[in-house]
């Protein structure tokens, strides 16, 4: 290894800019390169094992494991050891933070899977079940987080582990967590998702606003026009009746601090999807408006998620996604089946109000 290393001076001399990423062809396993663009079909063999068959007759087997997204360099090295031993050193990540080990030899699959399990990895996540959770940085690394994301995900995936490694559902269920409404993950279009929310008007540090913020930008940042200039204080004021706690003002002006540990918490959204299969892509809709933050394991959140997932599992028809199932039975039935109370927060008074109020006398009790 050390023979390839450059000194820091050499590295500085060879420094380049705007070269873009390495070309992906460098990293493709030979069987993938050979059959690129020429695949015939694929099949799920087990919850964590699939096969893709090429028109040439070549096969590539995929063994998938979950990852906690935050990975230490040492754990990645551990995965690379497995890749070196079984997969010619090739390894792939998925868009949902899973890791895939590929081999063109059927006889390798069993020992590859055993090796991964021996090293403590969970093999699964393919097909009609729960895959890994797309999520954001949370308290681990983000300035605007009002909950943790990695901790919530850990608690969720411990609870749903059976649905990752083994158990089937009517269709796939995509979970997501966002640690604020900025949503650096696809929470707004996930089957079941957790999004952290604020519930109180930000506290304004007028002295700091004066020094740090551009007033017109801060005023303009508010989607509900709740913010106006306060010329006397050379700061801003907030009309509390109009504030919906989105935190956009905080992002452009940090002294407008929206964090409030007693009142921050999370909401649960359900029924979104991104694919066009059967029905077009769907937004997630509000199921539970607020649950307080309960670190380290958020038991109330987990209880609700479990209820929603299990109600879906036992009521949906084969191939129905969560959103399709709810649309078929109706939202009034979703609330009665899950026992989740319906509150004023469920009635939209923001962007989508017109589209979401019922305009028919045909409904269920």
């Amino acid at each position, binding site marked *: 290894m050390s023979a390839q290393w450059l000194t820091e001076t050499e*590295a500085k001399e060879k420094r380049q800019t705007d070269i873009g990423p390495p070309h992906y062809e*460098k990293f493709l396993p030979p069987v993938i390169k050979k059959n690129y663009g020429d695949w015939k079909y694929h099949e799920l063999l087990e919850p964590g094992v699939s096969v893709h068959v090429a028109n040439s007759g070549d096969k590539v087997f995929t063994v998938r494991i979950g990852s906690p997204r935050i990975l230490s360099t040492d754990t990645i090295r551990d995965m690379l050891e497995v890749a070196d031993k079984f997969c010619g050193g090739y390894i792939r990540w998925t868009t949902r933070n899973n890791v895939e080990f590929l081999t063109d030899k059927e006889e390798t699959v069993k020992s590859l899977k055993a090796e991964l399990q021996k090293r*403590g990895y969970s093999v699964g996540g393919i097909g009609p079940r729960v895959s890994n959770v797309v999520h954001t940085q949370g308290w681990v690394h983000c300035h605007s987080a009002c909950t*943790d994301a990695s901790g919530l995900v850990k608690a969720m995936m411990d609870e749903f*582990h059976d649905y990752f490694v083994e158990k089937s559902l009517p269709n796939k269920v995509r979970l997501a967590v966002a640690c604020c409404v*900025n949503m650096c993950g696809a929470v707004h279009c996930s089957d079941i998702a957790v999004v952290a929310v604020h519930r109180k008007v930000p506290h304004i540090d007028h002295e700091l606003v004066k020094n740090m913020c551009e007033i017109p930008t801060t005023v303009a940042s508010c989607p509900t026009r709740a913010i106006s200039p306060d010329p006397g204080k050379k700061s801003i004021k907030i009309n509390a009746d109009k504030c919906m706690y989105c935190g956009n003002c905080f992002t452009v002006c940090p002294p407008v601090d929206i964090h409030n540990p007693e009142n921050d918490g999370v909401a649960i959204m359900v029924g979104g999807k991104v694919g066009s299969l059967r029905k077009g892509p769907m*937004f997630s809709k509000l199921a539970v408006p607020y649950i307080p933050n309960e670190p380290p394991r958020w038991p109330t959140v987990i209880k609700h998620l479990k209820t929603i997932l299990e109600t879906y599992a036992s009521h949906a028809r*084969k191939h129905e996604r969560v959103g399709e199932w709810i649309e078929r039975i109706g939202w009034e039935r979703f609330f009665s089946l899950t026992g989740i109370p319906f509150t004023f927060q469920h009635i939209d008074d923001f*962007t989508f109000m017109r589209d979401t109020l019922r305009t028919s006398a045909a409904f269920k009790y």
Partner: protein
Amino acid sequence: MKKYDTPLLDELEKGPWPSFVTEIKKAAQKHEAAADELGQLEKSYKTKRGYWKHGGIVGVLGYGGGVIGRYSNLPDEFPGVAHFHTVRINQPSGFYYKSDSLREILDLWDKYGSGLTNMHGSTGDMVMLGCKTEALEPFFAEISSRGWDLGGSGSALRTPSCCMGASKCEWSNIDTMNLANTLTQAYQDELHRPMWPYKFKFKIAGCAVDCVASIARADCSIIGTWRGDIQIDQGEVENYAKQGMDIKAEIVDMCPTGCMSYESKLEINNAECSRCMHCIAKMTKALGPGPEKGASILIGSKAPIVVGSLLSWVVVPFMKMEPPYEEFKDLADKMIEWWDDNAKPRERIGELIEAKGMRPFLEAIGVEAQPQQVYEPRKDPFFFWKDEDLG
């Protein structure tokens, strides 16, 4: 090195799913920064609030983006994370890696950073979590001299991302990885030097299954599709029936356009097919996309901030997508230019289209009005006329 007691985080090492706490502890064996990350995080778990400050201006020479400044609010208590910046490394298309190449990055990250990564961030980059300001430039010199570059951040083009496409999936109607790589290379300046009203994302999916969530998260969504008849292997249809698939209930009755029937064989009225992928996805051996491949171009999706979530809208129903992709790049340049000329600060292109109307946008990019762009025509009679419309 164990620096802090972490009773709350220790709870998250229990259970079958791999634990991020174990990962931070592993890195903390070697890195002061990871040890202090753990200490600060335990405090967050105790007090239920985060302690990170807004990013300041920090980066590498010649770049305006790619590094996100991150500082602790409690630098005296947790000096190891006093500055703890994110470095985004542009991922290779499709997230494929080779061990020797990835090991170079890991070794360098142990030398210059905290030993913690996100594989991957939500936009797709490899995220190196926790770099000191003085280590940014040498880390970048090292990785760039070995052929790696930074991704995007700030009001810039964000790192284009794609599904695995033709590399492993028979449904892919376009070469997503090649297109993502081509766009990334073509827009290096726009990626690295934030100069726009806000962020702009390209996401590329090979088919309507949309494994990369392009329709929900990309300002410009490129989704592979086809024209012509779905390919049918009737023998394989028969095999699915023999193996117990209820083809009527699972395939025919679930077809959203009702364009299929099944008696002795599967018939598809392709003219009525909306190419949703349900039947193909459920009968992988029997059905495949039609022969003329291309992509639909959609515009405008984003998460809720500022005015609520948007899904991408159809702009161009079908476009051929073959290298060097000049037709698409011309269109993308026009879309971005119109947005850059007209948007307010922090206004995404979808929000701008909502504010200004779809017609000015379509006219600016030279695309005709077509029924594929809407679910239904408008419900009100309050429309604009221009003099040239009056004839």
